[in-house]
């Protein structure tokens, strides 16, 4: 079985799949890839089931050595992936030779990237998922972020036919460092004054330094609670719930959120737009736009249709890449079929 070794872990590298479900009522959050679209595509590119575990890497990427040949794909935010020092393309499946090093030269765009391995990552499922939950200390490798010297097994590169598969860029979500996140209002929008609802939907919100897998705290002109107050009796929190504590600054709750909480939730980000916020970092901006539940569901159906058709769309190889040596220099050459 191919072995991958962590030379340096980067800022926060964890093993994630689509999440752990069925235990929220007992205080165990869902975890899972922050940008689930990128994770699913990374898996499709290498021919895996969509929900297989990948490495989720954050802002500063890790350095990995592959001790055997592997087939990988890197999707999500562009943190500058390089193999043996040469830049490699994202959103494409790559054949990587034994002994190669994958490193990241720095953020060009986004916040989180995903590395898939053909055949998957061989760690045990805990409560139905391989996702790392640092708080419950489960999943991934010993329930923690990866560190220097960690080694794990990944799948054998058995199906080379997928190498070179690439995603047409027009099928990607509208990633941006100033996205508009669509929301369904409520359930506690009646805890805010009408002018605050307007303010919530109209102003540019800035991502603060308190932005992690649990949630993103936003900065902006504070919202005012109505006479119904800034506290509720704790009840359920969903993925994308936007809760607003007393200080009037929204917090968008994400994959490592608690399932219950006591602040009023003004709105909920729709599923298909969660990947957009997962790619934001400190000082990026965002806006909220109100949509109906019907529209949210329609968008989700469209997204699923795209994902379902991807394996067919990308089945054909459209280019080949070669590494050639010219004197002292190594060059990456790409030949496209016209």
């Amino acid at each position, binding site marked *: 079985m191919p072995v991958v070794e962590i030379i340096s872990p980067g800022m926060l590298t964890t093993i994630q799949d689509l999440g752990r*479900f*069925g*235990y*929220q*009522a*007992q*205080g*165990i959050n869902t975890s899972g890839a922050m940008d689930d679209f990128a994770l699913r595509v990374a898996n499709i590119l290498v021919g895996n089931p969509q929900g297989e575990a990948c490495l989720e890497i954050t802002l500063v990427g890790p350095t990995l050595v592959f001790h055997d040949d592997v087939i990988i794909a890197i999707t999500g935010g562009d943190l500058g992936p390089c193999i043996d020092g040469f830049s490699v393309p994202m959103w494409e499946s790559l054949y990587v030779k034994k002994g190669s090093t994958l490193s990241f030269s720095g953020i060009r765009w986004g916040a989180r990237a995903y590395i898939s391995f053909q055949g998957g990552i061989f760690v045990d499922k*805990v*409560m139905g998922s391989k996702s790392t939950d640092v*708080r*419950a*200390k*489960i999943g991934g490798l010993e*329930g923690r972020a990866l560190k220097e010297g960690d080694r794990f097994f990944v799948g054998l590169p058995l199906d080379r036919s997928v190498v070179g598969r690439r995603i047409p860029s027009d099928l990607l979500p509208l990633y941006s460092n100033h996205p508009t996140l669509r*929301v*369904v209002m*409520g*359930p506690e929008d009646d805890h805010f004054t009408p002018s605050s609802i307007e303010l919530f939907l109209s102003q540019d919100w800035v991502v603060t330094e308190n932005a992690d897998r649990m949630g993103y705290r936003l900065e902006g002109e504070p919202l005012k609670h109505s006479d119904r107050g800034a506290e509720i*009796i*704790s*009840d*359920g*929190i*969903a*993925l*994308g*719930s936007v809760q607003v504590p007393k200080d009037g600054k929204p917090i968008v709750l994400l994959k490592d959120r*608690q*399932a*219950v*909480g006591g602040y009023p*939730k003004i709105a*909920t*980000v*729709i*599923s298909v737009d969660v990947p957009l916020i997962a790619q934001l970092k400190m000082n990026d901006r965002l806006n909220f736009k109100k949509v109906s*539940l019907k529209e*949210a*569901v329609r968008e*989700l*159906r469209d997204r*699923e249709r795209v994902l379902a058709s991807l394996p067919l769309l990308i089945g054909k190889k459209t280019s080949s890449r070669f590494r050639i040596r010219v004197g002292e220099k190594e060059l990456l050459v790409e030949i496209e079929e016209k």
Partner: protein
Amino acid sequence: MMDYPKYLPMGDRAFLVRFGDEISEELSRKVRALTLLVERERIPGVEELVPTYRSLMICYNPLKIDPEDLERALKTLVSEIGDVKLPEPKVIEVPTVYGGRYGPDLEFVAKYHGLRPEEVIELHANRNYLVYMLGFTPGFTFLGGLDERLHTPRLSTPRKKVPAGSVGIGGKQTGVYAVSSPGGWRLIGRTYLKIYDPDRDPPILVKAGDYMRFIPCSEEEFLANWKGELDFASPVEE
């Protein structure tokens, strides 16, 4: 003034059925009755249920069930909750060593209420507390039924570390920290019972609707049954 129950969408993946706006055994009973009915009904597309004090969160997949159909199905079930006979609740006994380094705030709680530490233990132990819900951290229980004479304000600065098994009082509530975490409750004791153990099936011993009952135990019993390294609460920074 408000019409309950309310059916509140939370984005495109969850629905909230809210029965009222207070913490009471009556509302909790309704939440549990609906939880039971939804579990029994096995509505396609319903993926997970999260009962809380006065609401039930229903996580669903809108690709498998239209939100309107789900709401309709939930309304039908809500109309039947009056007839539900809830199963006999489980009572989980929680052997607890009170005071000393296991419950460093016991003296404070006693002094705060003008009681002796033994009286605090007497008021806290050997009674059934309803588990309204779990959350905050894995296996953390929100219990109802704490004697009014023990209601004690939280620490103004939470401890950096409260070790797993700690039994505390926070305001009107009491409960057990099932995993080590920061925390602001007053710690009066400690149990060796592992409420959360990821390697066990089930990983968490308690469910909403169960009761917990603290049974005083000796330090010897605690130490004989404690598994793993024994760590203690960090000091209070007040």
